[in-house]
């Protein structure tokens, strides 16, 4: 037996421990601070988004003409919409407008962004960027008033210019197809600047090395754009298309000023129907019902876009 004494293990002095509640307090304080910073936005969203949405849903169940007290109507407003040809046509017009306007807007913006992103003096690039973005900061209503003059069939500058080269007057705003095409043209001219800026930003984020590697492998300009630029730009394209579609589904000023929905109903959009039903016919319940349907449509289209984007959007 050895007399080796095993030294007694002395417990190490415990490190000075923080008070038990300190991390929790820090967490709570962080959460409180975050809540304080978020509060104005949350209040804004609740007051200006949630309350009106809920208000519209509730109002869509009532008959209300502003003057008298609202009367409960149940689903009567929705039943009325089912048989209202103007409402149905307005949804069709809005969807047609959305598809054509957004497609054209993205195409124009992308082509111009690629062009501006090419070899070009910096000052000229700035000029183009400003010029393309400029229409977006103007009021849609005032632009539409000017365009109405320019596209007037009898006295407009556009037909006058066409007349100089022997083209007969075009019924830009007075034929069914011409009116929709002109409204789309004016809308795209004003709106493409936003997508254009997004694309310019997106193109700057495409790594040069990838292009250089592709060039070494013998890829040509078009192939590089199709197989490298576009896939890498797809997140930007998703954002631009989501914003573009939501805006297009709510189009109002351009058709309202340019054509007042005509000829017939050919350019009447859903938001125009909401405005006319509420503020001209004083049927706020019915107008709210149309608004609820538009809300559902926008939600559905946006959800579908995000769903489909899983297949087409590539993140680096």
């Amino acid at each position: 037996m050895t007399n080796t004494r095993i030294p007694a293990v002395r417990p190490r002095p415990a490190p000075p421990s923080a008070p038990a509640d300190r991390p929790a307090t820090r967490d709570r304080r962080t959460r409180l601070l975050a809540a304080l910073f978020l509060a104005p936005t949350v209040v804004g969203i609740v007051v200006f988004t949630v309350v009106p949405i809920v208000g519209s849903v509730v109002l869509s169940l009532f008959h209300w003409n502003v003057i008298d007290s609202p009367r409960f109507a149940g689903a009567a407003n929705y039943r009325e919409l089912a048989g209202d040809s103007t409402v149905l046509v307005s949804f069709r017009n809005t969807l047609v407008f959305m598809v054509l306007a957004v497609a054209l807007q993205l195409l124009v913006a992308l082509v111009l962004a690629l062009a501006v992103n090419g070899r070009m003096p910096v000052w000229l690039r700035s000029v183009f960027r400003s010029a393309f973005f400029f229409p977006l900061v103007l009021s849609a209503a005032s632009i539409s008033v000017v365009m109405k003059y320019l596209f007037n069939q009898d006295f407009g500058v556009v037909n006058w210019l066409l007349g100089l080269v022997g083209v007969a007057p075009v019924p830009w705003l007075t034929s069914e197809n011409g009116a929709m095409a002109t409204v789309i043209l004016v809308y795209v001219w004003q709106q493409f600047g936003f997508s254009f800026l997004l694309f310019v930003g997106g193109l700057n984020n495409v790594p040069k090395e990838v292009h250089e590697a592709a060039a070494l492998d013998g890829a040509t300009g078009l192939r590089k754009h199709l197989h490298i630029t576009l896939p890498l730009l797809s997140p930007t394209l998703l954002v631009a298309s989501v914003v573009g579609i939501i805006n297009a589904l709510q189009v109002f000023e351009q058709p309202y000023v340019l054509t007042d929905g005509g000829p017939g109903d050919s350019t009447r959009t859903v938001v125009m129907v909401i405005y006319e039903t509420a503020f001209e016919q004083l049927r706020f319940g019915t107008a709210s019902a149309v608004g609820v349907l538009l809300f559902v449509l926008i939600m559905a289209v946006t959800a579908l876009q995000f769903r489909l984007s899983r297949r087409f959007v590539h993140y680096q």
Partner: protein
Amino acid sequence: MTDSHLNRRALLRYGAYGAGAAALAGTAASWDRLTGADIPGRDDGSLVVATLGPAYGPAAIRTLTEGFRRVHPDIKVRINAVQAVDWSDFFAKILTQIAAGTAPDLVYVATEGVQLFARRLGVPLDRWVKRDAAELREYFADVHPALVESMMYEGSLYQLPVEFNAADIYLNNQVLRRAGAGFPAADWTRDDFTALLRDMKQSSGSRFTPYFWTNRLWGGVVPWLFANDTNLLAESKAPGGSWLWDTFYPADRRAGRGGGFRWTTPQADQPRVEEAYDYLASLIQEGLCTRPEGGNGQNLIGVFSTGRVGVTPAGGFWAGGLHLAGMRPGTFDVQFFPRWRTQRMQFGAAGYALLRTSRRQDEAWEFIKYAARRDTLTRLFETNQTTPARRSMLTADRYAESGPAHWRVFYDTLDRFPDTAPIPAPPQVAEVEQVLLKHTGTALSSPRSVRPALRRMQGDLEKAMERDV
């Protein structure tokens, strides 16, 4: 694991935060700041008068407020000039104010809104008119009964008309000369009108439009319906009104007058309506007039004054407009709307409607009377921006500077054709107008489109008229 219980120190700290927040909130609440009540005139006992903004410039507003103050120093008045594109936009904004609890006492209302306001919002003026009959005799003697009748609804009077405009035809004298055509006779016919348009077209270039018309309730297709002795909605008269006619108008001038117009039954698919549309479609096909959607009043003065348009329907308001645009007397003139089956014409009038919500109804009535006085209207309508409702105001002096030479046409439209009537404006007028504009565009897209478009118009009008406004 965190301790969910607050210790004493934390409790004190949160208590201090709470007290601080309460103190801040209290300070903010008691801070002297602007509220809706600080808007000049709101809740200060002023009589609030809503007018269609563009028609009332600062000088007109001064005329009304300062002039009224001189007559009634005890009544404060505030003019609320509401900016709006047209009457339906104006009514929408007024209704929004009413919904917001800031209803004016008086609203300037045109024919388009007379029945809507009368049915839902207005106060009949009958008791005040009866009370002040002696004072008002001079007014009614000066105002055509057709204008007064257009402000009646179901036997009661809701407004005193202060202005009106009939759809007469303006002609560009330069274009007439170019076409070698003389000034048309007062009883010219629809065929004379068509022949004149053809002459104008022949003598001018391809980029000339003989007849410019706009797609709207007033001055659009409706005057052609009147001339063809029909209307969009079957027209009848409400009983009553004799309390007014017997008091203020002699027997020959009150004959046939009733308690206001009733427009109840749509008749857009009737043959005479179709005939009027067919006529306009033929003018479009022949290149003699604009398509309805092509034109609007905004660019009309420009193209008319530069000789790119020959004729257009417009009221007395255009005399002032053309003058301001630089057209001198002698360069344009005005004639009655051409005869078809009849030469009955259409007009639109306007006056002040008193709202039920007003707490100053007696003061409001004083303002209505003041606004209809001859001296007030003379100062208000200096620039011939409209046709005054008072016959005595239409004098050679008034039109010497602005023209036209045949200025008598403005009031003679009523005097020579006493069955001239207001545009069809039932309480559902907004929807009626919308339906009219929509289907008129479709109807005139080709000659074959007229009948199907009118059938659809009829269906939509029936639905609109069934709605209780």
